[in-house]
């Protein structure tokens, strides 16, 4: 099945008076397969929202191609827009309109039945607050309303920019279940841009991480995590005095390195865990604990984007890693691709 979203070499430059132009998108590539929840991640200012805006025809781009459902956008966007539901950045509504009226106007403008309004209000948990004016809504309620308007059209592609923003824990849980149900039971393709990495890790099937307007990595979440976990092993011994000797035994193998970290040995480059136990046993050293260093998405993200905080320092906007110029995407997005980052 062809990808639902295909973006290739997307460029967007903001020209600024008396200053260097800002390349918001610098040859970005993105592919989203059908029926999956796809996370779209990146540090602040990396071009996520710009990409989504470009996809939806809200901003003009300076280069590259975009396709949704196989149709070139923004040229043919009017032909596919009825299948797209989207929330871009913080949701904004007329404050004096009620939630129901806000949705009714949108539904009416697209010729959707009014009954659909009540359905989505129920779906996002705003049934009781439907008559209240948006002015009285909390951030989370506005977020729910925004998602409701995206769901109105019963879209086949749902694009949500920070959908969990402002939601309470129950709301986040509900949103996660809703999006997964849409993707896995209804076949809706969901693209989620978010900074809540733990949420993305739970919610998404695949993801793309961008930095400075370029793709760094994309693929299945599990594969990306696996690709950046297990490369290091933590080894502990009954006697800390064994550490230097163990390090020596392990580093005898080419490509393997071992560093003493307090009372443990951090081994990288080992072919597999069993090789460590075998090598140490051969050297007459017996370990007490051997664990694979499991990284969560946050640590992988920080590593890939180069935005891990340093003691006493603050990572500034735009200081993320600079990926090399984009290369044509050859493999389907479910395969892990890492560009510019050593695996």
């Amino acid at each position, binding site marked *: 099945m062809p990808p639902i979203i295909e973006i290739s070499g997307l460029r967007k430059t903001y020209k600024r008076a008396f200053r260097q132009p800002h390349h918001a998108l610098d040859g970005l590539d993105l592919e989203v397969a059908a029926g999956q929840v796809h996370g779209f991640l990146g540090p602040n200012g990396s071009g996520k929202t710009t990409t989504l805006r470009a996809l939806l025809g809200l901003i003009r781009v300076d280069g590259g191609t975009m396709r949704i459902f196989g149709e070139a956008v923004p040229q043919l966007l009017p032909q596919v827009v009825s299948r797209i539901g989207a929330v871009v950045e913080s949701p*904004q*509504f007329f404050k004096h309109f009620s939630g129901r009226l806000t949705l009714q106007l949108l539904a009416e*403008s*697209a010729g959707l039945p009014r009954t659909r309004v009540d359905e989505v209000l129920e779906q996002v948990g705003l049934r009781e607050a439907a008559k209240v004016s948006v002015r009285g809504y909390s951030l989370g309620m506005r977020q729910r309303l925004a998602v409701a*308007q995206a769901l109105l059209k019963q879209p086949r592609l749902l694009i949500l920019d920070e959908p969990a923003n402002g939601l309470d824990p129950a709301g986040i849980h509900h949103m996660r279940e809703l999006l997964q149900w849409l993707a896995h039971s209804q076949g809706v393709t969901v693209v989620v841009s978010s900074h809540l990495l733990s949420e993305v890790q739970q919610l998404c099937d695949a993801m793309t991480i961008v930095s400075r307007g370029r793709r760094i990595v994309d693929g299945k979440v599990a594969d990306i995590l696996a690709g950046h976990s297990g490369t290091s092993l933590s080894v502990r011994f009954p006697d800390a005095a064994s550490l230097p000797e163990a390090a020596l035994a392990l580093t005898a193998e080419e490509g393997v390195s071992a560093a003493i970290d307090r009372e443990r040995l951090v081994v990288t480059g080992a072919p597999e865990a069993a090789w460590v136990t075998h090598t140490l046993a051969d050297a007459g050293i017996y370990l007490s604990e051997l664990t694979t260093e499991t990284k969560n998405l946050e640590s992988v993200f920080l590593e890939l984007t180069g935005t891990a905080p340093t003691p006493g320092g603050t990572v500034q906007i735009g200081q993320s890693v600079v990926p090399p110029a984009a290369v044509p995407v050859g493999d389907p997005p479910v395969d892990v691709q890492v560009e510019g980052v050593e695996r």
Partner: protein
Amino acid sequence: MNLFKAELRRIVRRRLSLIFGILVVAAVLVVSVVTFFSSSKGPTESALAEAQAQADAMNAEYHGEYAECMADEAFFEGPGWEWTAEEPGFEELTQQERCEWYVGSPGYTAEDFLWSYTFDLSEEGVVMLIGLAIVAGLVMMLLASSAIGAEWSSGGMSNLLVWHPNRLRVWGVKLAASCAVCAAVVIGVLALAFGLLFVAAAARGEVGTLDAAWWEETLQVLGRTVALTLGMTVLGASLAMLGRHTAIAGGVIAGYLIVGDMLVRVAGMALRMPFPDRLSLYTWVTAWVNGRIELYDWSASNFDGTADIMVIKATEAGLLLGAVVLGFALLATLVFRRRDVG
């Protein structure tokens, strides 16, 4: 059509629409009520008698003074009348003519002492209707600019474009909806005002002759007025689309009406150009609504006391005003088509 209906509903459901609607209806009611109470069909018996008494008293006073003048042959030879000796022609006047000249014409009537006003619908109604329609048009211009400006400032435009990416269609529908609301309101205001003024005229004034010729002329003038309000609405919406904020549109319009027009007139006079009034938009608006306007240039060296005259007809005024509105609307279209929506 769905988008048009939704847009109409959105404008109508806005709180500002309700406030403006109340204000416009209130203005019509105030004008009608003031007209009703200030007009009367004629004086009462007692007022007439009182006025007649005043007229009689004045006439009696006149006759006394006149008789005194006629009786005294040397009346105009005393102190203060020396200048008459040098006045050519004074010598040739008879004493009667001199006295009539000095005392004034006799014959005060009760009418001179009655302060009553009778509203005549056929004579004054059209001007009042034009005024009310233009006020309603100004309100609609603000409403249209607010509808567009608020959508930009609230982020609603971004939402709408996600649903309807064809920007030309969105802009066209917004203009059409604003114009439809404007036309409905202005025509409604005219109908309401005419009805109330007719009642006021019938009850306490004069309806006058509302024959076919009156209707033809009135409908032409009011038709042009409605067209003017539609142009104002398009202008307001276009300015808001360009500025992406209601205040910018309101500021530009108010700035021109208050300061800009005055500056243009001053510049015209400073440049000593003939007919400086033609630089004012008000001149062209007046020509459009009234059908024509005559401008006088007294600076021309006509020693016979006549002025050069420039006539602006409704067609010319319509072309200029239409070009201004169309220019702004096209500019707004081009900008909106290419603009990044943030």
